[in-house]
């Protein structure tokens, strides 16, 4: 759900290394090796961070080249700064359901009125 997805995104962004990785990917896609360089971190350690980012939908890793470039996915981040849209969607969907429910209620009331 919206709120779950938001929590996953925030948790992914909670780490400074991961935020730095995202900042680096703004300029261009990069390989794991390139991403690891500024942190002097082992490749497995960087890969762990990338997995978290991938799970949060913040990056995607293409299978094109052997070096599997990482690319930024802006959507979750835009969702955070655009939270009002989530809130609006919540109510729009609720109203869709209310619409359907009201027509069911009307049918029931008509049936009940006829029985009287």
């Amino acid at each position, binding site marked *: *759900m*919206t*709120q*779950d997805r*938001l929590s996953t995104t*925030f*948790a992914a*962004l*909670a*780490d*400074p290394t991961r*935020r730095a990785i*995202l*900042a680096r990917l*703004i300029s261009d896609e990069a390989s794991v090796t390139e991403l690891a360089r500024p942190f002097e971190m082992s490749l497995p350690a960087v890969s762990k961070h990338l997995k978290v980012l991938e799970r949060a939908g913040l990056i995607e890793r293409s299978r094109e080249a052997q070096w599997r470039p990482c690319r*930024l996915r*802006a959507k979750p*981040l*835009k969702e*955070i*700064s655009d*939270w*009002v*849209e989530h*809130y*609006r*969607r*919540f*109510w*729009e*969907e*609720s*109203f*869709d*359901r*209310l*619409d*359907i*429910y*009201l*027509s069911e*209620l*009307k049918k029931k*009331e008509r049936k009940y009125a006829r029985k009287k």
Partner: protein
Amino acid sequence: MSSVASSKEREVTITRIFDAPRELVFKAWTDPKHLAKWFGPKGFTNPVCEADARVGGTWHIVMRSPEGTEHPCGGVYREVVEPERLVFTNIATDKEGKPILDGLTSVVFEKHGDKTKLTMHTRATAVVDYAVERLKGMEAGWTQTLERLGEELARLQSAR
């Protein structure tokens, strides 16, 4: 139809016509048995739904997502004018009871022939501030960094 007041406060206004008389629509909002049937996004259920629709009365709903996670919310009724207007606070909390969304919602029900024109206006505090407080090890100025990152991304997206 929505307007963003500032980065801290968010306002949402939605207007909809419902094909039902005002009295019925109002009942759907205030009778907990009815409220449980439509409140929340698609696929959600409301295993807990209580509403005491009078001034000072409270409402309390626990929404359950299709994945099974629960989202409690509730608030207090400030105005209840049948069948014209409802004003209530809207607070969503996390598992520990800490508020993640704080809002004031007003709903106006207008007669529209046989139908009802409903206008809902909500003013909510952005969830970003809350999340910033809750996440551990946050650097100072994180919110600004995030906003700048977001703006940069939006700019790059439109430039592509």
